[in-house]
């Protein structure tokens, strides 16, 4: 008996430390990566770097076009994907499509979340760039990215809507409310923090996307800021990709500088999502 216990305790300890080591190894990799990028990137990181156009002379090059392109693209993507995604989720949860068709829609949405982004790029190229003739515009890019993150927004919004207690819905229905009134006065406000968290995480994924944008024809050399949704554009990750793939080492420093900017934006978006989630996790339990 006693021996058995000792052996089990030993195993328990080994397991615990193995898990600990593995956890820290991934954190360590991230730290090393950040350190390395910080080292190489700070050489060019300055206000001038943020406000200059790309150039073939490394000391003159900057990410102004990338920043503005990213801001335009993400705002446009948000404007398209948030209403579409949230309303789809509301429909699927609150109105419910009965029977087989409902099941099929549900499985499809879940599966779309797993489709590789390059496939969305090809879809965007065929449908938006060619068929609708939107060309290599911001709009094409934003529509493509919207398709890409739509399933993520739908799935996370549905979870948030599902978490709204039925008791609240019934309480409102019992006062003679219509479905629309129940949804917009009660379900949506209660689910909003959860929805926002999902939306922000989805958008921060979209900010980092490169592959689909290359396919729909985003450029890498642009020396103006977009003025309309039909303008051509570049984005931060593309600019980074372009610099990183050049042979001259100086450009790699520029790429690292771009990565620092991109990471800062993404991490602060994720941070906001975490704050929203923690601030509101205590609310509404019936």
């Amino acid at each position, binding site marked *: 008996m006693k021996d058995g216990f000792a052996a089990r305790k030993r195993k328990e300890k080994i397991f615990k430390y193995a898990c600990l080591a593995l956890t820290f190894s991934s954190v360590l990799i991230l730290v090393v990566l950040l350190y390395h990028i910080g080292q190489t990137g700070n050489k060019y990181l300055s206000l001038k770097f943020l406000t200059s156009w790309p150039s073939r002379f490394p000391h003159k090059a900057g990410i102004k076009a990338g920043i503005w392109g990213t801001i335009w693209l993400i705002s446009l993507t948000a404007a398209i994907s948030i209403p579409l995604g949230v309303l789809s989720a509301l429909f699927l949860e609150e109105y419910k499509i009965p029977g087989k068709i409902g099941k099929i829609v549900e499985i499809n949405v879940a599966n779309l979340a797993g489709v590789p982004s390059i496939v969305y790029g090809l879809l965007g190229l065929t449908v938006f760039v060619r068929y609708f003739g939107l060309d290599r515009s911001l709009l094409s890019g934003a529509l493509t990215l919207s398709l890409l993150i739509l399933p993520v927004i739908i799935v996370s919004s549905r979870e948030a809507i599902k978490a709204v207690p039925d008791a*609240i819905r*019934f*309480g*409102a*229905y*019992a*006062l*003679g*409310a219509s479905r629309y009134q129940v949804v917009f006065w009660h379900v949506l406000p209660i689910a909003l923090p959860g929805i926002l968290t999902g939306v922000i995480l989805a958008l921060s994924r979209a900010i980092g996307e490169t592959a689909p944008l290359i396919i729909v024809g985003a450029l890498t050399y642009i020396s103006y800021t977009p003025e309309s949704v039909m303008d051509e554009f570049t984005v931060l990750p593309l600019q980074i990709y372009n610099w990183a793939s050049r042979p001259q080492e100086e450009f790699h420093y520029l790429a690292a500088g771009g990565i620092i900017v991109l990471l800062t934006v993404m991490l602060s978006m994720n941070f906001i999502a975490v704050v929203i989630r923690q601030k509101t996790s205590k609310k*509404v339990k019936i």
Partner: protein
Amino acid sequence: MTNEAVMTCRNLNIFYGEKQAVFDVDLDILKNKVTAIIGPSGCGKSTLLRSLNRMNDFVPTFSMNGVINFEGKNVLKEDPMVVRTRIGMVFQKPNPFPKSIYNNITWGPKIHGHKVNFDELVENSLKAAALWDEVKDRLHDSALDLSGGQQQRLCIARTVAMKPEVILMDEPCSALDPRSTIRIEDLINDLREDYSIAIVTHNMQQAARVSDYTAFFYEGELIEYGVTDGIFTNPQEKKTEDYITGRFG
């Protein structure tokens, strides 16, 4: 006071899918009276109550036939939203909206576009629910800060604010402590002056304390219905007697 019926159920059958839950029930809800619906778990009493204001419509497999007469119309054929404005409901667990006390009460009348003085409405509704004195200084605090018993009285106030004809209560005290229960029972006593009440309860003492009429259900059938005193002191049916004397249930 006359024994005028505000709601009359005739030949009411209720189904969940293939399974019949309520069989051929005739039941009257009398004006300004409290009607208790009692019976063992699964006897169909809650199902019946929730059918009276069409709250069972949300159960996908639910269906019913028969007649529920209310204000000269058949509830089964009416728009459920209209029905629910005239027949309010208080649920088993307090379910205030996560809004202020004030907004909990005004929300119903607001969405129906009632043109009333909301301050007065809030005060009167809270007074009717015996909650005014406890919350008058914090009307704009969250309803979720109230105790369970207070929340339930707020839910009653919210129902009263719609000025319904009938109030349905589905085991309104089962989630509450004994003191809160007594307060709700006293409240039901007062509410009968202005409303007709149907209350489902597990608790037979409660039925005896608060109701004027009692309906005993067993396995989906209405076994016995009559004046509460009669049901409890001199039941006509063997099953009723067995149940109220605690031989089963």
